[in-house]
């Protein structure tokens, strides 16, 4: 029972628009509305996440953090920074490969918006829904590494080239663990459609249904997700002390802003996918048998659940980022190939055994 299913709302909007104007115009209008919604959400989330990161990191380092612009909390610091970055000069380099240099931000943003559009915010509130949803997210998010490699290579600086190849090697390596842990959840749910994966968790979230293998997969996913988002102990692509800013050293102003934007949104997407696959997405917290509790939980809208869980995971990822020291490139690759990768293969095997012999809850 879900009181907040907005599928019927979507259909009635489409019906009203279609009755008022020709079909083509109605679809165009809806397309524009969806596009605007994505841009607004994207920008808003980036601002919220950057503000949250500053506060959280300040708290972990016993600092105060932004507290001047916009009242006591420093609430307007990030909007002010966004305006500032918009008005900065965009430098064009003499020896850069101009075409690839300009193409790179497009790829990075494209990858993150494609995965962003697949997130299920509520029942009926997803922009792209397909049978292979979660697989599409994996495919779309791996376009991002192309953008990073192109950015580093085309700007014709040694820092950026080193940053780009490091980042490339790291992201593709950790993609394996991401793929395998997502695979365990597909095994458990028996579908790749993101909304159906959420529906499957109506009685119990996947992390409880799949008990030991799911819990292990969640940990591996968090570690690998941190690496995928180029953050945390894995931010050696832009290790400030050795590579200035890594692959985006040569970008300035808004051109650099896109990489920054995509980095924070990738953090949100990683957390969003984690909450969808393991923690039930927009599905309220249910305990089988306790009908009273379940009914009360159903009154909380799905979008609140989704955003709440996602931000909880985001906080966890920030906690990891500001707690652990940065790894070296060989340590990063060793961790993935000698520990996480065999571990995720074992998790897949364990989950297969559990699913086939009916050992899941």
């Amino acid at each position: 029972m879900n009181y907040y299913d907005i599928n019927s709302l979507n259909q009635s909007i489409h019906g009203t628009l279609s009755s008022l104007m020709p079909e083509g115009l109605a679809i165009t209008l809806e397309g524009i509305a969806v596009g605007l919604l994505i841009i607004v959400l994207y920008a808003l989330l980036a601002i919220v996440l950057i503000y949250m990161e500053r506060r959280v990191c300040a708290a972990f380092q016993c600092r105060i953090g932004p507290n001047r612009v916009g009242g006591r909390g420093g609430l307007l610091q990030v909007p002010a920074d966004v305006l500032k970055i918009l008005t900065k000069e965009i430098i064009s380099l003499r020896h850069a490969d101009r075409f690839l240099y300009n193409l790179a931000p497009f790829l990075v943003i494209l990858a993150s918006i494609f995965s962003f559009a697949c997130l299920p915010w509520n029942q009926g509130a997803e922009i792209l829904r397909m049978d292979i949803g979660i697989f599409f997210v994996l495919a779309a998010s791996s376009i991002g590494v192309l953008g990073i490699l192109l950015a580093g290579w085309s700007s014709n600086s040694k820092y950026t080239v080193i940053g780009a190849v490091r980042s490339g090697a790291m992201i593709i390596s950790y993609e394996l663990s991401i793929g395998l842990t997502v695979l365990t959840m597909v095994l458990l749910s028996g579908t790749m459609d993101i909304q159906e994966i959420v529906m499957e968790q109506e009685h119990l979230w996947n992390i409880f249904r799949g008990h030991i293998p799911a819990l292990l997969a969640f940990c591996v996913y968090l570690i690998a997700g941190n690496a995928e988002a180029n953050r945390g102990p894995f931010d050696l692509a832009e290790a400030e002390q050795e590579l200035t800013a890594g692959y985006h050293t040569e970008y300035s102003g808004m051109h650099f802003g896109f990489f920054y934007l995509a980095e924070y949104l990738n953090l949100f997407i990683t957390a969003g996918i984690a909450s969808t696959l393991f923690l039930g997405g927009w599905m309220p917290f249910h305990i089988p048998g306790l009908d009273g509790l379940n009914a009360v939980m159903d009154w909380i809208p799905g979008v609140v659940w989704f955003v709440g869980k996602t931000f909880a995971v985001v906080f966890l990822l920030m906690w990891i980022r500001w707690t652990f020291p940065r790894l070296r490139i060989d340590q990063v690759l060793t961790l993935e190939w000698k520990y996480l990768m065999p571990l995720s293969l074992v998790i897949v095997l364990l989950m297969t055994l559990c699913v086939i012999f009916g050992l899941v809850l």
Partner: protein
Amino acid sequence: MFFIFLIVVALTAIALVVLAMTVARLVGPRSYNPQKAEPYECGIPTRGKSWVQFHAGYYLYAILFLMFDIETVFLFPWAVVAAEAGVYALAGLAFFLTVLILGLAYAWKKGALEWK
């Protein structure tokens, strides 16, 4: 309908970059200086080309990645039907994984996973 939204999302991403870049180019200052167009270094001009050769280790990992990434691609459709296929699915996975783990073990033994 689905493909329309796929195109809408792609266009949104492109529009976001183009719009923000246009605003930034219109609002931002513009000045030219030969020093400014140089690659960022420690204050001295770059020596030689920046498009240098880099560590071969990255290449080895890329090759290994290809092998295992294709593996996950093949496993996804299998995962959807695994619960229904039962023991057959397990046998299939066991065979498939054995081949791959042998490959990983070979690469490990040959030292492809060591950073030298």
